[in-house]
C-alpha cells in the first residue's frame, strides 16, 4: 500500500498553499491530488499555478492528479473542467459524471472520485469500461461492504480509501461560511481564508459536530484508519488518501508511513496533532461520528 495526499479542501493564502506543496515534495507520498474541488470562487491559485505545481511534484517523483470540481453549476465551471481534461499531461480525478463524460470522450484514463457514488460492482464496471483505473468508495462505506465489492475488481482497477482527515459529507449551492457572516455568496469576501481548517459547528450543548467549509460540510471528527492498515492491506486496497490539514500534515504522513513500515500504531501521537476528535464509525458500519476504542488496543 502507498499514500496519497488528497486535494486541499480548504482555502488558504497563496503563500501558504505554495509553501504546503513545497514541503509535500519531501513527504513519503506516491501521489498528490491538486486543484480546487470545492468552490469555483476560490482563485488564489489558478489552473496554470496548479499545473506548475503538478510539474514540480512529478519532478519530485510523485504522481500528480488533478481533482475536478465536485459541484458544477455554471458554464464557466464547465470551461475550467474542459481545460483540465484537455491538458492531458496528468491524470484527472472525476468528481461528478460530467467529468466522466468528458474524460471518456477524450480517451483519458481517470480516477473515479468518492462523490461518484460507487456502491456496487456494476457501477464500478461501467466506470472501468469508460477508462477509470483507480476509484475511491464513498466515505460512508463500511469495511464489510468494501470487502464484498473487492471480492472481484475490474482488471487493472486500483482502490484508494479515504483514511485520514475530516470527512467531506455534503455539498450545497449555499455557502455556509458566507451565511455565518450574513454575506451573500456572490460577495463572500473570501471569509474561508480566515478559517484554514474550516468553521466548527457545535450542538447547543457544546459538542463539536460538523465543520463548515464554504459550500462543503465536513465532519468535526477526524476520520482515521491508522489502526486498520492490516485489514486494508488484506482487502487489497492499493492506496490510502490523507486529507490536508493546516498544521502538522507532514507528521500525519510520517505516522502513516511508519505504521505501513511495521512500526507500532501511533494512534495516540496522531491524536495529539489532529484538529478534532478521532472517529471511525463508518468503517465499522455504524454512525460516522462514533469511535471504536479497539484500535488503541
Amino acid at each position, binding site marked *: 500500500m502507498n499514500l496519497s495526499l488528497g486535494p486541499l479542501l480548504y482555502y488558504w493564502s497563496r503563500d501558504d498553499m505554495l509553501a504546503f506543496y513545497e514541503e509535500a515534495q519531501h513527504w513519503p507520498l506516491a501521489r498528490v491530488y491538486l486543484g480546487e474541488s470545492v468552490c469555483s470562487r476560490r482563485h488564489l491559485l489558478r489552473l496554470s499555478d496548479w499545473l506548475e505545481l503538478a510539474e514540480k511534484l512529478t519532478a519530485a517523483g510523485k504522481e500528480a492528479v488533478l481533482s475536478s470540481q465536485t459541484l458544477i*453549476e455554471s458554464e464557466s465551471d464547465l470551461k475550467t473542467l474542459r481545460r483540465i481534461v484537455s491538458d492531458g499531461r496528468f491524470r484527472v480525478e472525476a468528481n461528478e459524471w460530467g467529468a466522466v463524460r*468528458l474524460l471518456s470522450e477524450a480517451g483519458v484514463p481517470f480516477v473515479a472520485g468518492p462523490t461518484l457514488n460507487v456502491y456496487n460492482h*456494476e457501477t464500478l464496471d461501467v466506470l472501468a469500461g469508460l477508462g477509470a483505473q483507480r476509484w475511491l468508495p464513498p466515505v460512508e462505506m463500511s469495511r464489510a461492504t468494501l470487502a464484498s465489492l473487492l471480492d472481484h475488481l475490474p482488471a487493472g482497477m486500483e482502490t484508494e480509501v479515504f483514511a485520514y482527515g475530516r470527512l467531506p459529507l455534503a455539498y450545497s*449551492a449555499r455557502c455556509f461560511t458566507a451565511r455565518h457572516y450574513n454575506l451573500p455568496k456572490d460577495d463572500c469576501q473570501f471569509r474561508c481564508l480566515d478559517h484554514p481548517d474550516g468553521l466548527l459547528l457545535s450542538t447547543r450543548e457544546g459538542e463539536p459536530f460538523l465543520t463548515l467549509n464554504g459550500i462543503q460540510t465536513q465532519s468535526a471528527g477526524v476520520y482515521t484508519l491508522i489502526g486498520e492498515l492490516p485489514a486494508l492491506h488484506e482487502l487489497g486496497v492499493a492506496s490510502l488518501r490523507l486529507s490536508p490539514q493546516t498544521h502538522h500534515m507532514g507528521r500525519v504522513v510520517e505516522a502513516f508511513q511508519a505504521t505501513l513500515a511495521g512500526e507500532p500504531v501511533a494512534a495516540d501521537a496522531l491524536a495529539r496533532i489532529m484538529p478534532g476528535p478521532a472517529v471511525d464509525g463508518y468503517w465499522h458500519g455504524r454512525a460516522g461520528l462514533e469511535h471504536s476504542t479497539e484500535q488503541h488496543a
Partner: protein
Amino acid sequence: MPLELICPAGSLVSLKAAIDNGADAVYMGFRDNTNARAFPGLNFDEAQAAEGLRYAHDRGRKVLLALNTYPQPDTWSRWTGAIDRAAKLGMDAVILADAGLMRYAVKQYPALRLHLSVQGSATSYEAVNFYREHFGIQRAVLPRVLSLPQVENVVQHTDVEIELFGFGGLCVMVEGRCLLSSYCTGESPNTAGVCSPPKAVQWTDTPTGLESRLNGVLLDRYGKDEKAGYPTLCKGRFEVGGETYYAIEEPTSLNTLDLLPEMLKTGIAAIKIEGRQRSPAYVTQVTKVWRAAIDAVKKNADAFKPTPAWQAELNKLSEGQSHTLGAYHRPWK
C-alpha cells in the same frame, strides 16, 4: 411543450387523491429501501402498485416508480428484482440514480423508460448527457441547487426532458451528495433511503425546554412559545463562532409558485411536488393548487399571478409554515 405536474403517492389513497385532483403523473416506491422514502407504513406492495397503475391508466395518467437509492453488493438482487417487477407491472418509467442499475435496466428491458433521479446529482448538461448517451434516459430531475438561468442553460444543451422540484421539503444539499444523516445515525438517503430516520429521533422535556435529538446529538431546543418541527438534521439550531442559529437552513419548505412563469420559459418538461411521506390531505390540496396554477400560467404566462388563496393554502402545508424560493432565486445562496 406541455408542462406536466408530477405528484407524490405514498399510498393508494394518496395516489387516487393526486389523480382525482389533476396530477399528470404520480411517483411511488416499493415497500423497501429501494427508494428514498423508505419509511414504515409507506409505499406499495405489488398488488397495490397494480391497482394504482390501473387507476391512473384508466384516467389517462402515468405512474413513475422511484428506485433511487444505491444498490449494495450483497443486496443487488433486491434492486434488479424491483426493476423486473416494474417492467412486468407496466410502469410508465423508473426513476434511477445508480449507473450500474441503469445498465441492467437497459439491457433487460430496452423499452422501459428511464428517468434520472435527483439522487443522481446531475447538475450540468454534461452529466445529463452522459446518462443520455450511455443509458438513453428520457428525463432528468435536477438537484435543487441551480438558479433558473442555469436551469435554462441545461435545457438548451440537452435533448433530455428536465423536471424541477416546485414545492415541498427542501434539501439544502445536493441530493445524492449528502451523508450528514449517516454521519449522525448510520443511515443515509443513498444507502438506506432515509434522512434523519424516525427511529433515531428522541424528544425530551427538560427544564430548559423541549429537546430534539438524533442518535443522541442535540439538534434543537425549543422554548415554551416555539413550535417544534420534525428534527431534520440540517434544519436544527447550532453554535458557530459563539452564535446559535439555523446554521444550515431554517425549517422551511420550497414553494416556487411565484417563479412559475420563469420556470415555464426555461423550457422544462415537468414540475415535481415533494412529499410521499405526507398525508392524502396534503396531496389533495397541493395538487389542486398546482393544477390550477399550471393551467393559468399556460393560458397566459405574462398575466400570471399566484392568488392569495393559493399561497395561503400552500403556506398551511409548509414545514414551519414558511417557504422559500430556494436556489432558483440567487440571493438564497
